[in-house]
């Protein structure tokens, strides 16, 4: 599917950056982006394995989509809110969620911040404003708009980032969320991960529009497409959207084209080697650093999983907490029966 303007791309295959579109990119940030993508993939691979064994359920792999997830959150400010969909564990990790928190969430242990109530994905991380979202596709979109709208009401420089797959654009919440964003000029960045598929439905059957970025036109919002396998391009696109939002120019719908939708082999589209070539081109990377990184990452992931595997499940009585702020009479009776 073609989108109106060609997708923004910055990373060239030789690892250099297209000067026309390159954002400022410090060595530290370049390395951090790469390291988080590697971490995300390692964690993902491990959890996919655990799911095969039946140890965890309902994990949605982000394989190949790491650049979109990490690049977008990295472009936001710390005080901004982040609303994930099903594949954005890496956004919470970028925001500082410890691996052990993710692992305990995945296993639903007594140490899980969510008290083992929701199936693994997606995790939330309150202290860094990573929101709790349901597993209903699309519902978090209007929440993100509400947060951004509230910040604007309070004239506080806080924006919201919300991720969703292209399938979510068919939901009523996408429609309401983007329409309210257009009318209120709420500072929100919508990142639509177009990976070409909603389970078995190809994007071409999800909608007849020319791509997804163009849907912004229906809401008076800015829309743009970006190469979702290009972490620097995602950083640039979302950074620009964040800047406009802060300037009162309203929200932006960023369509990040990844996976099959990118129409290049998964080899060529793989965001990790692409960013590695950039680090190498800048002389920031070596075979040794790569080895060390992989070793650290698998050690950290292994340790977190091991801790969670050993953790106790939540106690029965905890099920009755948090339905209301105070456990009401009828729930106390059910708990104590």
């Amino acid at each position: 599917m073609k989108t109106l303007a060609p997708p923004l791309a910055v990373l060239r295959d030789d690892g250099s950056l297209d000067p026309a579109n390159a954002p400022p990119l410090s060595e530290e940030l370049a390395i951090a982006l790469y390291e988080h993508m590697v971490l995300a993939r390692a964690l993902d691979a491990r959890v996919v394995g655990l799911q095969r064994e039946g140890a965890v359920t309902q994990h949605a792999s982000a394989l190949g989509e790491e650049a979109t997830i990490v690049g977008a959150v990295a472009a936001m400010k710390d005080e901004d809110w982040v609303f994930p969909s099903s594949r954005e564990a890496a956004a919470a990790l970028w925001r500082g969620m410890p691996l052990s928190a993710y692992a305990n969430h995945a296993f639903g242990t007594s140490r899980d911040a969510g008290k083992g109530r929701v199936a693994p994905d997606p995790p939330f991380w309150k202290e860094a404003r990573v929101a709790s979202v349901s597993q209903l596709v699309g519902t978090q979109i209007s929440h993100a708009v509400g947060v951004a709208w509230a910040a604007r009401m309070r004239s506080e420089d806080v924006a919201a980032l919300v991720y969703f797959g292209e399938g979510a654009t068919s939901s009523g919440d996408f429609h309401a969320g983007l329409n309210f964003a257009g009318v209120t000029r709420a500072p929100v960045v919508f990142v639509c991960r177009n990976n070409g598929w909603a389970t078995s439905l190809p994007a071409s059957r999800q909608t007849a529009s020319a791509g997804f970025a163009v849907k912004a036109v229906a809401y008076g919002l800015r829309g743009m497409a970006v190469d979702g396998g290009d972490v620097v391009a995602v950083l640039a696109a979302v950074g620009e959207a964040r800047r406009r939002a802060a300037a009162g120019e309203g929200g932006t719908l960023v369509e990040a084209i990844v996976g099959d939708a990118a129409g290049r082999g998964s080899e060529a589209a793989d965001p990790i080697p692409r960013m590695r070539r950039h680090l190498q081109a800048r002389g920031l990377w070596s075979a040794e650093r790569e080895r060390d990184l992989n070793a650290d990452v698998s050690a950290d992931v292994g340790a977190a999983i091991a801790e969670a595997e050993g953790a106790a499940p939540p106690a029965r009585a905890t099920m009755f907490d948090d339905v209301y702020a105070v456990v009401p009479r009828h729930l106390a009776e059910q708990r104590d029966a």
Partner: protein
Amino acid sequence: MQLNLVQALNDALRLEMRRDDRVVVLGEDVGKVGGVFRVTQGLWDEFGEGRVVDTPLSEGGIVGTAIGMALYGLVPIPEIQFADFIYPAYDQIVSELAKMRWRSGGEYAAKVVIRAPVGGGIRGGLYHSQSPEALFIHVAGLKVVCPSNPHDAKGLLLASIRDPDPVLFFEPKRVYRAAKGDVPEGDYVVPLGKAAVVREGTDVTVLAWGAMLYEAMAAAEEAAKEGVHAEVIDLRTLWPVDIDAIVDSVKKTGRVVVVHEAPKTCGFGAELVALVNEKAFVHLEAPPARVCGFDTPFPYALEMDYLPLARRIVPAIVETARF
């Protein structure tokens, strides 16, 4: 001061918006025109369009964005123009609002009070008359309130706004203007979860709320002429319900009649009957009776036949007493 129910609600909203600048009102036509029933009248003038917001025509968007505002720390009070139009927001209410605190282990909470007029008797027909309370009481995590008079309307709305949990606040539109009464100036609350015995009696306990409370009271007067003395309880908060008040009364009367406008099947009356069975079975001397809307959609021309008016409640009271 003498106020009707609309004025009492308006007074509560104004007071709380003055007291707490986190409170915002949003919905369709709630701004300059003050809402279809004028409950928000004058708020737009006093607090401006920053805190009293006319939204696009999307109940799902109204509740969805209100949840986001609440996460951010505001206290949004969305108005749904008629409860009949709440269904486009049903997913946001039951899947998101009701479950936010629980699914996040208590770390996130969305404090939202959803106001909506309910009930028939205004020639509103099928889509302007419904009473959907049972559809929310069944969903864990929500509180459901329905006042019957101006005093309670103000006190319950203030309590609902200050309560930490999401509240569905249903307003009995049939008595919006008809119900007048003395309302204290300034701040007071009617606590959630407390029913009121509005008529003492020894023979039958009648449970009602909202507009049907007046029918229950009228029926009780009628029954008295036949020597049957009904105790009438205004539940005020539907969920969590004041089970002690109900059980205390049923222990005394041994008999209960439940009245509501919503269709009988799987209505809140069924839960009340089941609770009475669980808590006071040995005291029951007659089968609990339900006088409800019929299991049909809400009619236009025949609404006075549909509603559980006094003329249908009286025989139920008398037969239950004489069982």
